[in-house]
């Protein structure tokens, strides 16, 4: 009965989404107040109904209702409660429901916080979001209904894939989707502006905070996923350039470009065409990612040729949404003006140069991800494009962008002088070169890759600090205390500093872990000692333990340095009987300068085990860097000018009328 209510509420949500996506647009067109006024209530009803469906699915998981096919195939009565709830998005149908649920969250947010926009614009914005939702709800209802029943009910479920039974599963998908789907708001802003013909500075100012939040969520979501892979997959990798990862990374790159080009458009009303195209692209790449992941074109476990209906449906959806958006773009963009003048060498041009780099980088990821499909479709056979390609091409493309990151923020708006920037950055150049020489010799192994990486990381960090110092100096007068001076700097500026600083931390982490990680594959009997650098890992044997839904061999390793014990690690080899699968659960002692990472291989004779011991220097900096970036985004969001200025602009507009 209860699942039937869930299905009903999805159907009703679908109907409300249709209302939300069509009638208000007619209302704006025909100037019918009654139809215009439908937008917000329809959007809220739609979102509420989706939330209800989502909670009902969660409830079905909670009470182990195995008469719901989806619950029976992704959960099990032995599964711990928290994972039963995370299992809501553990399979295809549920993750699609999560997608629309998060779209509902964003829709609600738009109806609540985007109040100060002109009516016609706001209504179009909400309607576009409704149209995005219509397609997804149709997809769910017609091809991937999570409420399909199983009669008679299964006695027990087939369990959640043990790989997904992890705290990472609880946080990673919702946060990632908040980012993915969050770009739908920027997309809706772009479409509304194109429809409205109001592509101007104000449009850019309205879009900025929404883009920044989505970007921050996406950054966090990707970081969570990477961290999860790091400890869950048992060999300490944190990024694999897998199609699924690339699918989330491309919107991130384009979203990053968008944040920067929005700055130019807001300041100068320039490059509007490019900015609006980026808004469309960021969300389009999110959708493309969904297609790639969900259709099985690149990585499915099952050959998709047997049931291509889902793939065809999503593809049609892409054609309508993205194709429609790009068509509208082609029709309206030629009439957009140039905006204010600025010099070829200026803050604006640095921001746009960053866009070229990020777009080319996103292009390389897209090309690498799609190329095997391209070659196969042209009858050229099967090829693989993997980490060696991306490491080479992506890094080479990004390197000039990283260098520009140091210059750009010091450049003045409208017109700037390169030599002046050069003078200010002398110190940063010295610091970076010295670090590039010093760090490898401290770490004990010199390599060009590390030197270049450290140079770039140090360059970003030092230029960011110099930027702060410059800002303080330029405002410092005798009568103002340093604290008040610091307080006077807008939060958006701090946000930018923090995000850039995060990139520097991230680059250092990546460089040092790639350059200096070590791995040992050893055979250990009880009380055997494995030595890595100045550390000794003593194997104290493995014992059998019983988890809630698994059996496990849990090893104990005591790590000593000199005579001091610095850690005890318990890696496990788990067996999950329901799916008959074995999982390697590595144990990690994280540290600021290095992680100790131990995973159990196979049991050997006489209580011995094959053991992998990794030392991962500075690996935590990778995720720390991402978190700093995301915090930077959130800090920028708190800048009061978004609220104040938004109101002023609207007042200004109304006055004009």
């Amino acid at each position, binding site marked *: 009965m209860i699942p039937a209510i869930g299905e009903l509420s999805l159907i009703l949500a679908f109907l409300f989404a249709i209302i939300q996506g069509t009638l208000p647009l007619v209302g704006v067109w025909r100037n019918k107040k009654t139809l215009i006024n439908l937008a917000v209530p329809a959007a809220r009803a739609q979102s509420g109904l989706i939330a209800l469906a989502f909670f009902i699915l969660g409830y079905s998981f909670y009470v182990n209702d195995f008469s719901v096919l989806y619950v029976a195939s992704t959960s099990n009565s032995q599964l711990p409660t928290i994972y039963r709830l995370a299992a809501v998005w553990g399979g295809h149908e549920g993750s699609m429901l999560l997608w629309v649920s998060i779209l509902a969250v964003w829709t609600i947010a738009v109806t609540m916080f985007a109040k100060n926009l002109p009516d016609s614009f706001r209504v179009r914005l909400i309607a576009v979001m409704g149209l995005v939702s219509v397609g997804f709800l149709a997809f769910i209802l017609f091809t991937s209904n999570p409420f399909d029943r199983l009669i008679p009910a299964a006695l027990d479920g087939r369990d959640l894939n043990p790989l997904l039974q992890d705290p990472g599963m609880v946080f990673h998908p919702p946060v990632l989707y908040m980012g993915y789907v969050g770009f739908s708001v920027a997309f809706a802003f772009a479409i509304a502006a194109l429809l409205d013909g109001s592509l101007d500075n104000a449009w850019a100012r309205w879009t900025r905070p929404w883009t920044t939040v989505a970007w921050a969520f996406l950054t966090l979501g990707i970081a969570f996923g990477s961290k999860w892979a790091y400890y869950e997959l048992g060999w300490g990798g944190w990024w694999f350039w897998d199609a699924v990862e690339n699918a989330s990374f491309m919107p991130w790159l384009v979203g990053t470009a968008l944040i920067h080009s929005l700055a130019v458009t807001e300041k100068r009303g320039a490059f509007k065409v490019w900015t609006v195209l980026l808004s469309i692209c960021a969300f389009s790449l999110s959708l493309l990612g969904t297609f790639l992941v969900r259709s099985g074109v690149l990585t499915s476990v099952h050959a998709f040729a047997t049931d291509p209906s889902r793939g065809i449906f999503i593809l049609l959806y892409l054609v309508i949404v993205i194709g429609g958006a790009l068509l509208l773009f082609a029709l309206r963009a030629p009439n957009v003006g140039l905006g204010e003048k600025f010099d*070829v*060498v200026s803050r604006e041009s640095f921001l746009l140069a960053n866009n070229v780099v990020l777009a080319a980088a996103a292009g390389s990821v897209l090309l690498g991800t799609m*190329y095997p499909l391209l070659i196969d479709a042209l009858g050229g056979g*099967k090829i*693989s494009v993997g980490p060696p390609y991306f490491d080479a091409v992506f890094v080479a493309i990004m390197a000039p962008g990283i260098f520009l990151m140091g210059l750009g923020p010091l450049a003045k708006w409208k017109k700037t002088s390169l030599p002046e920037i050069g003078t200010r950055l002398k110190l940063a150049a010295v610091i970076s070169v010295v670090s590039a020489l010093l760090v490898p010799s401290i770490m004990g192994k010199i390599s060009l890759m590390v030197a270049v990486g450290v140079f770039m990381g140090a360059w970003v960090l030092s230029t960011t600090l110099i930027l702060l110092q410059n800002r303080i100096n330029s405002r410092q007068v005798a009568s103002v205390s340093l604290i008040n001076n610091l307080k006077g700097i807008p939060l958006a500026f701090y946000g930018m500093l923090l995000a850039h600083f995060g990139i520097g931390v991230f680059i250092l982490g990546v460089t040092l872990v790639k350059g200096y990680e070590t791995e040992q594959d050893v055979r250990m009997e009880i009380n*055997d000692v494995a030595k890595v650098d100045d550390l000794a890992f003593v194997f104290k044997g493995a014992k059998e333990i019983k988890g809630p839904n698994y059996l496990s061999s849990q090893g104990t390793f005591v790590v000593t340095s000199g005579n001091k014990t610095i850690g005890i690690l318990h890696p496990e080899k788990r067996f999950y009987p329901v799916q008959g699968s074995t999982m390697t659960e590595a144990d990690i002692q994280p540290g600021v300068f290095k992680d100790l990472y131990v995973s159990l291989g196979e049991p050997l004779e006489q209580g011995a085990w094959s*053991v992998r011991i990794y030392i991962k220097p500075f690996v935590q900096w990778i995720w720390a860097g991402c978190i700093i970036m995301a915090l930077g985004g959130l800090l920028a969001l708190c800048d009061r000018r978004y609220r104040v200025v938004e109101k002023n602009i609207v007042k200004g507009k109304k006055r004009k009328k």
Partner: protein
Amino acid sequence: MKKLLITLMLASHFLLSANVALAGEAKPLAEDPVLEARLKAMSHELRCLVCQNQTLADSDAPLAEDLRKEIRAQMREGKSDQEVVDYLVARYGDFVRYRPPVNNSTALLWFGPFLLLILGGFVLYRALKRQAGGESFETED
């Protein structure tokens, strides 16, 4: 000679740490750590055919194990990395290489992004000049 060196190194290592390690030293799983390192470096660029989204180095599939064994054997015979890769490509095609070869059909893949970067830079420069009012200003000192 090499063996002697390794023995000496191990011996000195053991002497230095004898006071800590009461039990035995963990033994490397591989008979020949140097060869193993070579295998590892190489197999990180090879794709496992069974579990298609893993490298040959990371996969526990039986075929991956067999292939690693085969690669070790060939390396011991003195074959170069290139010869070993060619051996695998002859059997499984370019699919096994995570680093696609540079040839006519992959030229776009390898050079396309750089072309995009250069083209993008050019288009931006022209657009910036237009934005500046049809002429470029010389930057003043």
